[in-house]
């Protein structure tokens, strides 16, 4: 199975391990990620305003490129996934945005939201199946107590993202079980890490990351995993200083792709 793949800017530098291990693990699980040629930044944030078009265009380009390759589009970074998935929904369902975006881009064939956008985790759950991931595990992470950190962008708004139950998600916990570790449920796993505010308002975001980590370690978490470079950055800055990894790093370790992480 081949997928078009949108890595996003951060995965090319600071979050290269999120990207690299995802690619390296894929063949073992029976699929392949084909990076889109000439992709551009997704835009970073999804503009909520209904009259915003320009800031959505680069996502539309990626979506249209995947369409021309005739493949589903896979993402990894939570922010990219959020933006691309929501823009795709707009292109499918909001006539004004569809019209104005197509007017800007003047593609050979107007884009109408045809591409199916999947997060890497959704591929693991819905296409590969966590049962099959488990079968491929060579080094189960036995006894490790891992807290899943979802953050905001994968889950909300649930109507469009349709990723998991926004208040009681299970996908990352199922992933943790699949690689042989023990998931820890803690209530802040879907609360905000502080987001982009950490650039200018460190105190505010620090407070939030602290709450997340305090709650996680209170329930016995030994390490956190996430799919978002910004969440990882913010969580690493918190007081409790729990180790934080990308989920692909642990996947690679369990599958025997990476020697150590």
């Amino acid at each position: 199975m081949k997928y078009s793949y949108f890595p996003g800017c951060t995965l090319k530098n600071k979050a290269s391990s999120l990207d690299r291990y995802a690619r390296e693990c894929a063949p073992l699980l029976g699929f392949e990620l084909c990076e889109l040629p000439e992709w551009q930044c997704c835009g970073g944030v999804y503009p909520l305003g209904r009259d915003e078009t320009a800031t959505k265009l680069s996502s539309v380009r990626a979506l249209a490129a995947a369409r021309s390759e005739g493949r589903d589009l896979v993402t990894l970074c939570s922010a990219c996934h959020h933006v691309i998935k929501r823009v795709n929904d707009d292109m499918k369902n909001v006539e004004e945005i569809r019209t104005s975006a197509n007017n800007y881009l003047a593609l050979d064939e107007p884009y109408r939201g045809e591409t199916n956008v999947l997060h890497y985790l959704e591929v693991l759950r819905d296409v590969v199946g966590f049962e099959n991931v488990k079968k491929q595990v060579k080094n189960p992470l036995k006894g490790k107590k891992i807290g899943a950190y979802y953050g905001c962008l994968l889950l909300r708004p649930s109507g469009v993202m349709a990723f998991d139950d926004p208040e009681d998600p299970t996908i990352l916990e199922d992933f943790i079980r699949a690689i042989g570790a023990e998931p820890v449920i803690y209530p802040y796993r879907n609360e905000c890490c502080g987001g982009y505010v950490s650039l200018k308002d460190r105190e505010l975001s620090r407070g939030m990351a602290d709450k997340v980590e305090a709650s996680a370690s209170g329930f016995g978490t030994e390490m956190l995993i996430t799919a978002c470079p910004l969440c990882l950055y913010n969580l690493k800055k918190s007081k409790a200083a729990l180790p934080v990894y990308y989920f692909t790093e642990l996947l690679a370790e369990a599958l025997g792709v990476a020697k150590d992480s």
Partner: protein
Amino acid sequence: MQRIGVFVCHCGSNIAATVDVKRVVECARLEPGVVFAEDYQYMCSEAGQMKIADAIKREGLTGVVVCSCSPRMHEATFRKCAEGAGLNPYMLEIANIREQCSWIHKDMETATEKAVVLMRAAVAKVNLNVPLKSGESRVTKRALVIGGGIAGIQTALDIAEAGYEVDIVEKTPSIGGRMAQLDKTFPTLDCSACILTPKMVEAAAHEKIRIFTYSEVEKVTGFVGDFTVDIRKKARSVDIDKCTGCGVCQEKCPSKTAKSEFNRGLSKRSAIYTPFAQAVPNVPVIDREHCIKFKTGKCGVCSKVCPAGAIDYEMRDEIITEKYGAIVAATGFDMISLDKYDEYAYKKSPDVITSLELERIMNAAGPTGGHLERLSDGKPPKNIVFIQCVGSRCADKRGKSYCSKICCMYTAKHAMLIRDKYPDTNVTVFYIDVRTPGKNFDEFYRRAVEEYHVNYIKGQVGKVLPQPDGTLLVQGADIIDGRQVLINADMVVLAAAIEPDPTARKLATMLTASIDTNGFLTEAHPKLRPVESPTAGIFLSGVCQGPKDIPETVSQAGAAAVKVIGLLSKDKLLTNPCTAKADELMCNGCSACANVCPYGAISYEDREVRGIGVREVRRVAVVNGALCQGCGACTVACPSGAMDLFGFSNRQITAEVDAICR
């Protein structure tokens, strides 16, 4: 040619403020067939009706058009008036110029123009009306009540007291319903079981009442006065006549893993069980999914210990067919599933419970023996938070748009009872509005605040965060004081929205009774006919019609009973004369009409047909007027145009179309 009179109603200012009634009268005078037209303040008043009756006699009218409110409102009134004046009631038609004209349009010119068109359509129709005569149908003097909660019990008792036979069908093993699960009732705080169980016993003992528990309605056919109903009596596996209710079987049953439905899953029960101690009938059922005998073939303990020899593993479902004159739906409610509301941690923490679960916990016969304790560790909670409107008053996809009505009061009750019994427990209630309309209701709520110092906070809770130490951090808003509130609670109680019992939807389809977008059964008129369904002979009792508390439910149950009694007291009912009829000359006996008739009202007979150039014996369709309900499906299915419907004939409807498109 008809001699038609047109009567235009002002309805005070309801019509006259937007429709120029004088102009409608003037235009009416120009219509073919119209010999008389006038307007009046209130046509439905006695004086207004007198005007119609007088004109019929004086002008020798053969047809009448009343331009007024909806025919659903006053068609019957005016037809009765016409009949009183010697005119066949079906020679009168209504032009709806209120609901469908004056109330929805603002501009006088537009509204008047439309009113004139509607009047013309009605006149065109009346020109083609023919006198119709109702037939008669019999009334089976027995009523069926579906649902054995307080609503069904009260309705059945009231009907039985008037001397009519009543059957109650209840899907669970005992009557009693939700009220049996409650501990105390507001606003008097009397014990629910103490006031309900005597009624249950009375119903069971009443010579006019039969109770079918563990049974469901399977099929309904027929119509008002003459319904035929199939009732499935599920296999109880216990002989109801032999069982003495000693309870030994339940005690000795080795399978005790099933969750007790009555205790909302908070405790376990045996596979052979009665839902609660005061069950009526006090005869257990075997839950075959959990019974070892049924699962493995080995066991049979209950049969061995039963002193009466009442256990019967071979028992099968039984279908009984019975006739009824009237049917009352009393299917009640359940609480919504909270699966989608996990910001309140209901799935994650056993100490987050629903109000109905709290009822069971507070009840002396409940899973904790009436001790208020946390289900996680059995410790008494010191800080309790109540959250109101969980799933009620929602405009999103998760919840219900309506107010569940009972939550404000039962929460005040819970808060008060807890503060009374455990004075060192802190109780906080997050509310959006406190709604207490009802006798002694607001006083009750104020008592909770003033006497019992329950902490009411206006605002919702955003999230309940379970803590490592087992407490629950409640993060809420106090929008009056303008702050975010954090409370470390030991227990959180959710006032989950109530919804109609899921069986109501299926039942509505069987009864051809209408249902609203929320799944509540629709009443014939929201104000004037609140306990009747729009389908004749079907009545509504209790929460199946909309959220209500016990006093309201009991009143409505009594009202439904009175309507049933009124119906059953008649020996004959007049049938709707607007039935189908085939023109023998045109009918070729093809069976297309019979194939679409939902009532089996069409049969075929060989008849001698005489027409111009025709005289032969031929197979033609014959409609049974007593069975035909007048839907008209056959009239369209008929390829030769032989089938027509009295009251809504092809010519009449075509005339209306022509009058509108002129």
